[in-house]
């Protein structure tokens, strides 16, 4: 039996995208929360993501890289249609990436300006990504309703990233800032709940093939596990943040882990809805795949490199475990 290379690369691309959304999601979320904190707290918030943001963004390059490299035909279609939102996202990523460095070295109103640009870049990136997701799952259909839907998904993703960012801060900070983060996380959760409900209701209307896959008894019953598990994860966030707010003992990592679970479940639902299409209703992963010689050569690299990559990423998170502190060399 030979290996189904396009399937393997679709799985790898999915993994890279999920890791990107979760990892850069928390640091984009922290960026969007900046205006809600005071100057000292802002420094702590930035310090909590400082060692990680760069590697987090690399997952986006890998995910899009796999799309480009393993599914070149789909890459042309997707990025061609999404040309402008991609450009906005890139400008957002650039602004926040450099704002990160500049704000540490600036003083006075310069620092304020970079804080503001850090917020704006984080927001622009998140919104553009959600907008693109909305366009993508509706097969890039033109029309007012579809654009409205994409805007809705854009706003939802911002809410999701805020949830991730706030729960990350619960894990990485303490005292007053942690207290604030608990409040933010609950707002973020409410936003996410509303958004998931709306998107779930709108998606079958927006795409017929998704509708068919969802309402296919008896598989629908098994599929119900996804929303149920999502509800459970949401309840965990609500319960744990509530206990922490009241000063009762609760592990500070639970809200973040549960938020990650919500994203993973939503991602699984999306992957199920789309499979085996890479461009919905138009192109399957096998139709879009690159030549086997290219895929094989890359797979060798992935198999060799991935264990190291996971090992040193885990090492970096271990080095910076515990509560964040400000200061470049601490």
């Amino acid at each position, binding site marked *: 039996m030979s290996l189904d290379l396009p399937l393997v690369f679709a799985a790898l691309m999915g993994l890279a995208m999920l890791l990107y959304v979760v990892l850069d999601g928390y640091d984009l979320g922290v960026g969007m929360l900046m205006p809600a904190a005071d100057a000292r707290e802002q420094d702590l918030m930035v310090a909590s993501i400082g060692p990680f943001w760069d*590697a987090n963004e690399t997952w986006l390059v890998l995910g*899009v890289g796999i799309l480009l*490299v393993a599914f*070149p035909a789909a890459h042309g279609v997707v990025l*061609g249609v999404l040309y402008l939102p991609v450009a906005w996202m890139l400008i957002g990523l650039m602004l926040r*990436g*450099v704002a990160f460095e500049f704000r540490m070295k600036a003083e006075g109103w310069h620092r304020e300006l970079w804080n503001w640009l850090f917020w704006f870049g984080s927001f622009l990136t998140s919104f553009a990504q959600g907008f693109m997701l909305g366009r993508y799952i509706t097969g890039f259909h033109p029309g007012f309703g579809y654009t409205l839907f994409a805007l809705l998904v854009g706003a939802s993703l911002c809410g999701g990233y805020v949830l991730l960012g706030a729960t990350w801060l619960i894990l990485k900070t303490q005292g007053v800032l942690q207290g604030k983060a608990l409040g933010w996380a609950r707002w973020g959760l409410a936003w996410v709940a509303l958004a998931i409900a709306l998107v779930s209701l709108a998606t079958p209307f927006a795409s017929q093939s998704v509708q068919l896959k969802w309402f296919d008894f008896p598989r629908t019953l098994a599929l119900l596990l996804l929303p149920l598990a999502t509800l459970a994860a949401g309840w965990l966030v609500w319960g744990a943040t509530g206990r922490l707010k009241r000063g009762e003992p609760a592990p500070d990592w639970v809200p973040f882990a549960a938020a990650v679970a919500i994203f993973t479940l939503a991602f699984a639902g999306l992957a199920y809805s789309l499979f085996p299409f890479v461009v919905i209703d138009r192109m399957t992963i096998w139709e879009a795949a690159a030549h086997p010689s290219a895929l094989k*050569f890359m797979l060798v690299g992935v198999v060799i490199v991935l264990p190291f990559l996971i090992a040193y990423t885990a090492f970096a998170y271990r*080095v910076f475990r515990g509560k964040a502190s400000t200061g470049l060399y601490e």
Partner: protein
Amino acid sequence: MDEVLLLSRAQFGLNIGFHILFPTLTIALAWILLYFRIRYAQSGDPAWLATYKLWTKVFALTFAMGVVTGITMSFQFGTNWPGFMLKVGNIAGPLLAYEVLTAFFLEATFLGIMLFGMNRVPGWMHIFASAMVAIGTSLSAFWILALNSWMQTPTGHVVQAGQIIAGDWWQVLFNPSFPYRFTHMLIASGLTAAFVVAGLSAWRLLRAQDDKSARATLRTGLVLAAVLAPAQVIVGDQHGMNTLEHQPAKIAAIEAIWKTEKGVPLVLLAIPDDEKRRNDFAIEIPKGASLLLKHDADAELKGLDAFAPDTAPVAPVFFAFRAMVGIGVLMFIVAWWGVWATRRGMLPPRWMLWTFAGFTFSGWAATECGWIVTEIGRQPWLVTGILRTADAAGGASGAQLGASLTGYVITYAGMFLAYMVVLTHLAGKGTQA
């Protein structure tokens, strides 16, 4: 269609031209930092630690600029040149994927430890992290230059059922121009970083003569530049010979040789006229080009007429090459002169410090010129003999390209201004920053 091609090229050219500034500096600066870090570990001297910290700040800033503009580039491969991936994606794709896998994650992750982990990990681990960052940046250069060189001088590929795929990956990677281009670029990076270190140290010394750290780093930068400058002359010459063998049309454009002749003169300066296909106001050395390129005064050299109509615009290539060589010669002189003037711990006079400060970004200027030569010089080909630039464009409309180009120009201008302000600020404060 012409409008789309022009805007695609303008946008991509702007982006790579802007992006390359930052890796050019960080590739070598990462190794210089490792040197500072090891000096501190050996001596325990807090001055070395302060030096390391100061230059780490410069590095982190430059690295961030490189990362964000690099992410943009990774998207623009697809958005601006859809035909590129369709035609040669089976070769270009894996090379880019290997760059991400082996280099990007390595440098990004260990940079976190290098910047924020000094008090959290043992000293040897911190040195190891610094080394990983340096290896990562150089590995990144390896993959991207392998791809660029393959596009210039493609080998190792086969055509199977209309698709271009790799027959022999070793030949794809180590294609004829790769060893020369890679070495040329690494040395260019070394020279760029050396002059930035020397220049910013001189800038500091103009404000505070007794700054010992700045004196030490001025010397480090100048010595490094003095060692690398002659090496670059040799490697550059070899690279030129390699280009003559594999991309003779590019050499004809560089030297503004319009007609195939024997005993071709070397055009030192002229105004090449692409319309009338001749040089105006030429200052020439008789038989010089034949002598220089073939080591034989009467040898025949192929002119642009031999490759028509597939030739590059001559004027930009011709001028950029002369600018690169000119700046390189000045850098050579300044470096050696500087080494002499700083011997035995001497402090050079203020006007010399001003000269070093003025040469801070000379490496950038020369590197930009070099890339203009090699990238415009290969036109009209994107992949020599396989894919024309015009056939790779498309995807976005002129209006979309125009709108996003405007956004990029504004963003880049703002970023560059801020970068320069912070750099001068850091340099002005020195190790007290």
